[in-house]
């Protein structure tokens, strides 16, 4: 039982991080029809800028996190203005968008490696305090991550549902040409999308760095698989689906290591479990969990 609670809790923490990152990818996809393969490296960027600001520049940690989110947004917007906008206007296809996104991923990852080296880093945070809950050891850092992530997720869900920009984003995602003629400010929608994706990517990166303890420039890439699986699981382009997909995947991956399940799967194989879940779901529901049967022709 204690192990179950422990794994469930770990899974929820992991799932909240997957969900935040998946949300960004899903939003960008629904508005811009672009699978952002660089999303993982935006997580890494967030973790490393926070590390730099907090540890090397001795800024308060919370301020460092906020500044990192701002940097994530700025980098996303610069890329929008110099790359994505141009590609959209030239009518670039799916392949071009994929390849440019991966190009960005390589450049980001290697710039981080060039600047910080390939050594692993850690935040100067209290990683040791733990609480006991139903026999499970719950680290304080994990608990804070889960709380903050839950607030961030609720906040963004409300924002998309209630705010004017959020409504415009949904309208634009549903039918871009209709939304454009009905007077929605398309530029504003796109900027809002990149802002959310950039800020939440950086925040998810900080959370992941905190939970992992140590991180390298490959952190985001290692996570990308699970994040993409969460996106597809929740039906690509569906923001709420991505959040739920993230939690489902986080919990399933951690619970798969539970001893009570025929000894459990070695924890190094967790990503394989994530992939297996994805393939099985897609076999039965090719549109993802929340996809609707599309009308043909």
């Amino acid at each position, binding site marked *: 039982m204690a192990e179950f609670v422990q794994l469930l809790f770990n899974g929820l923490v992991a799932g909240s991080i997957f969900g935040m990152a998946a949300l960004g990818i899903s939003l960008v996809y629904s508005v811009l029809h672009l699978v952002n393969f660089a999303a993982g490296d935006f997580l890494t960027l967030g973790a490393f800028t926070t590390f730099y600001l907090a540890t090397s520049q001795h800024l308060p940690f919370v301020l460092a996190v906020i500044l990192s989110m701002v940097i994530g947004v700025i980098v996303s917007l610069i890329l929008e203005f110099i790359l994505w906008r141009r590609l959209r206007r030239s009518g670039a296809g799916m392949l071009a968008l994929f390849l440019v996104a991966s190009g960005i991923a390589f450049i980001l990852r290697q710039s981080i490696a060039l600047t910080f080296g390939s050594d692993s880093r850690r935040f100067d945070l209290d990683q040791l305090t733990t609480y006991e809950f139903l026999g499970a050891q719950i680290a304080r850092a994990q608990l804070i991550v889960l709380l903050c992530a839950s607030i961030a997720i609720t906040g963004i869900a409300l924002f998309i549902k209630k705010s004017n920009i959020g409504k415009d984003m949904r309208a634009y995602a549903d039918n871009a040409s209709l939304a454009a003629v009905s007077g929605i400010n398309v530029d504003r929608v796109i900027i809002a999308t990149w802002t959310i994706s950039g800020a939440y990517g950086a925040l998810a990166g900080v959370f992941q760095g905190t939970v992992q303890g140590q991180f390298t420039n490959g952190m985001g890439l290692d996570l990308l698989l699970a994040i993409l699986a969460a996106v597809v699981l929740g039906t690509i382009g569906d923001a709420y689906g991505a959040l739920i997909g993230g939690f489902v995947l986080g919990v399933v991956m951690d619970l798969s290591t539970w001893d009570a399940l025929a000894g459990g799967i070695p924890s190094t194989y967790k990503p394989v479990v994530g992939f297996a879940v994805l393939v099985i779901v897609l076999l039965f529901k090719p549109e993802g969990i929340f996809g*609707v*049967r599309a*009308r*043909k*022709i």
Partner: protein
Amino acid sequence: MNNLILEVNDVAVAFGGVKAVNGATMSVEVGSVTSVIGPNGAGKTTLFNLISGAIKPDSGTILFQGFEIQKLLPHKIADRGIVRTFQGAKVIKRLSVLENLMLGAQNNPGDNLINFFNPRARNAFEKQARERAMALLKQVGIERFANDYAGILSGGQRKLLDLARALMAEPVMLLLDEPFAGVNPTLVEKLLEVLHALRTEHHLTFLLVEHDLETVMNISDRVVVMAEGRVIADGLPNSIYENQAVVDAYLGTRKLNS
């Protein structure tokens, strides 16, 4: 009842709660030209997609030459001899006009990778098929574009290509989805001429979908009228004019539209 080639029995399908076809029943006689007409949203194209296998019905059966086909995949239905054209005509833009036609050739040994090692069989078939394709292009009058990308064709020429490609497949029954929509009068003449020739020379069976009765009046043996997913009338072209349900359906939508 042996002369029925196609029987659609009480077929229904819904998309996200909307019943696009709601219990449609109709049939087609061997060698006839049957037209399905109806206002927009009547479910004509959906019925077509059901017959050609692009969508699967929620209930009901579709029999072709006595066999149930409603569960078959589109290519299996095509194998049985039902070949369709597409609304607005679909061409493969980055293949040449001739290559588009060659796609229609059935039982091409070159489609099977094993025959990569049997170039003689492949080449013999290709040569024969190419001759037939050129003859068809000539018949519909676009042979001068044979080696151009199909993407450069005009809308009307694409319709001719779509038709020729379907004929290349040597169908038993041809489904034509709005063949006359948006086509200039000269081209309509050309299409009618081709259809007439096919009918008299090859005894093909035709099922057409059209928006208006006028267009198909003269070429149809029978007219099936659909509205709101159901068949509301079925009979000789002339008798349709006098049918009160049909008048109501068309007038009703006209009121809605205006």
